[in-house]
């Protein structure tokens, strides 16, 4: 088939492609600042953080000769490594101590087995006293009996590879052993329970927000402008108040000697000895978080409801529908887009919440994010924090996918 050509002899197809390409480039150039900004401040740091959940290069970088020498060592033989491995350990440690890396390695290995931290701190002094004339194996064994313990060597071998699944396993209450992967004993399991609790409570909070927010949004959308504006300010006012102030206010209200209990005692509903426990438990987290996240549900609902003409309801009623049928069959289906948007916004905010559960959640009302914060700022186990964060991110993405299948994300509207 003959190709259609433009006036200057270039095939039309090519010319169009060129024009489109130019257009695309221009568009790309226009969004480039934003794209670069997002890449630098968002994508790269997050990827870097997530990669920490598998990074284990510190062991092989600090002890290169030892890990190489351990490759041929068989833990199943239940024999200590040979003299050559101890010599390798001596050489590695000597260099590591000069660069002050040995204590870092100790901290890393202590995440897996208690006691490594001080073993490596102490070895700094031991190594400086060792002499080449005596067997290094004997000198290490004399310095600390942990060096003659198969467990220490098993650990070093298990964590020799540059990448590890160790953090992820720990985040799922599992552990690596020379015989494979095992569940932790019941008394040491915490994370699975926390993940389940985080998801369950976030769903309950979302449901509560919807239950409370729907009538308010309806009121806002249907009252005359002047009254609804006033109401809107009441909705937004707490939104502009500091989160900590709001959470502390809930403390004052809910605690056992607090306002609500005082009033109930005064009214005679409860006795002084039977004051209700409304805070420092799951209930406290539910109440405070529902209050804090309520605007995120009301606003999308309101903006969708505003667009529904009141004549639809009147038409339904004039055709003989009862109030309930008119609402359920005509009004409600039109607000689904707003419910969808509000629910996903509230849920995703709730699942990552940290400060409010910490302050009012007691022991039963804390979330997985509280553990992530603990590992970031307190235990400094960033690998663990990254693993927990990755799992949480994956969970959210999975739930998002399920949500898309059920509700349909294209139906979600913010206004």
């Amino acid at each position, binding site marked *: 088939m003959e190709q259609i050509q433009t006036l200057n002899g270039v095939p039309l197809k090519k010319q169009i492609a060129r024009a489109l390409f130019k257009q695309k480039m221009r568009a790309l150039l226009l969004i480039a600042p934003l794209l670069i900004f997002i890449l630098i401040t968002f994508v790269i740091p997050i990827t870097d953080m997530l990669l920490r959940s598998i990074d284990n290069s510190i062991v092989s970088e600090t002890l290169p000769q030892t890990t190489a020498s351990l490759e041929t060592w068989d833990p199943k033989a239940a024999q200590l490594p040979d003299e050559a491995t101890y010599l390798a350990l001596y050489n590695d440690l000597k260099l590591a101590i000069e660069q*002050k*890396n040995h*204590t*870092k390695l*100790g*901290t890393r290995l*202590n*995440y897996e087995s*208690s*006691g*490594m*931290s*001080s073993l490596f*701190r102490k070895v700094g002094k031991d190594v400086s006293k060792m002499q080449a004339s005596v067997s290094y194996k004997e000198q290490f064994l004399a310095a600390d009996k942990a060096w003659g313990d198969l467990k220490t060597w098993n650990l070093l071998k298990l964590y020799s590879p540059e990448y590890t699944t160790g953090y992820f396993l720990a985040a799922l209450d599992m552990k690596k052993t020379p015989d494979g992967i095992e569940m932790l004993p*019941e*008394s*040491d*399991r*915490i994370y699975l*329970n*926390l993940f389940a609790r985080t998801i369950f409570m976030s769903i309950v909070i979302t449901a509560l927000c919807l239950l409370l927010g729907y009538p308010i949004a309806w009121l806002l959308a249907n009252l005359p402008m002047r009254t609804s504006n006033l109401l809107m300010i009441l909705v937004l006012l707490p939104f502009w108040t500091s989160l900590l102030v709001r959470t502390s206010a809930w403390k004052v209200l809910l*605690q*056992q*000697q*607090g306002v609500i209990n005082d009033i109930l005692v005064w009214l005679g509903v409860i006795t002084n000895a039977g004051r209700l426990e409304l805070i*420092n438990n799951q209930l406290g987290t539910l109440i405070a978080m529902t209050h804090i996240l309520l605007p995120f549900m009301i606003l999308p609902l309101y903006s969708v409801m505003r667009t529904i003409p009141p004549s639809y309801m009147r038409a339904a009623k004039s055709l003989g529908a009862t109030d309930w049928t008119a609402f359920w069959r005509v009004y409600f289906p039109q607000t689904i887009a707003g419910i969808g948007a509000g629910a996903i916004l509230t849920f995703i905010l709730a699942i990552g919440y940290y400060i409010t559960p*910490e302050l009012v959640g*007691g*022991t*039963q009302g804390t979330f997985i994010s509280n*553990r992530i914060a*603990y590992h*970031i*700022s307190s*235990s*400094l*186990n*960033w690998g663990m924090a990254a693993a927990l964060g990755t799992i949480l991110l994956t969970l959210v993405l999975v739930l998002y996918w399920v949500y898309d299948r059920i509700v349909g994300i294209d139906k979600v509207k913010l206004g």
Partner: protein
Amino acid sequence: MKLKPIFAAISVATFSSGLLAADMAKEMTIVSWGGAYSNSQIKAYHEPYMAANPGFKIINDESSNEAVAKLRAMAEAKNITWDLVDVEGPDSQRLCDEGLAMEIDFDKDLAPGTDGSTPTKDFGDSLINKCFIPQIVFSTTFGYRTDVPEWNGKKPEDLCAVFDTTNFPGKRSLEKRPKKNLEWALLCDGVEKEKLYEVLSTPEGVDKALAKLDTIKKDVIWWSAGAETPQRLADKEVVIGSTYNGRLFDVIEEKKQPVAMLWDYQIFDFDGWIVPAGLPEDRKARVMDFLKVSTDTQHLADQAKYISYGPARASSQPLVGKHAVLGIEMAPHMPSNPANAKRFLVNNIEWWSNNEDEMNKKFEAWLAK
């Protein structure tokens, strides 16, 4: 604050030609805990130093409770914006282990005591590692309300009153972490002080401690910030609770609440400074100069005028005077006062640095049960 290194670079570039090696930065950022504690440091250390060095400025940052994580992030970004950081003993140990804090030559970098003793001797046990410059001794101990009707006039006299809900009913406030709680539980379960960590190092010992805590678990409200216990005591939300002794001093002496101290088996800790590793020369010179002046015998004693924490130097002890505002004698309120320190523990940093992760896991699992 971000601009600081640039300023420092400019000032070095401009003046480096004609200046001595002892050129010092014109400002420095000191990180501390905020509140009454920062205030006591500003009065005792910052203001006198600024008065003696016109044109020099101290910037206060209140990030000490997240100092370790932030210092690690700064070191990774190779942009250290802090010059001097106030941390607790165990944090200094971790910073030192990670190479994030500079090692100090105590006898060279610090001033000798007024009684002529070397800094190493004068600071004594408070020198817990090579990087930590101690300022104060504080303790974690209990305070109780003095007006609980259900107690029928009885007063808690020893630590085990905390675990005695028959004689002393009511809610307790304990810190939401295993450290200190496990020790106290074992002490009240009949374990001797000398054998504490030997027992805690066995799984049975930990179970034993948690079983003891189980007896009061339903009566405990857990805290994570030091200000929570004093607030709860004042609100009558709890009848007895643990916190730092300075916070209790504040409730009792300044806020005049009906609360009293229970010093039995208080747990001593040190708080002090570390210098971040890798500071440029001019900033390092300034920090070291500040440290030498501020940690001398008189300056350390001065801090006790503003807060009830004891100076870390032995030679400072006799100089502890009256509270600057309240005018009361401070010595009886010091954790190290012999009457208060009949029975005590010292935070076992070495043991906890090894076992904190594991204990934390067990403790969290126990809490969730």
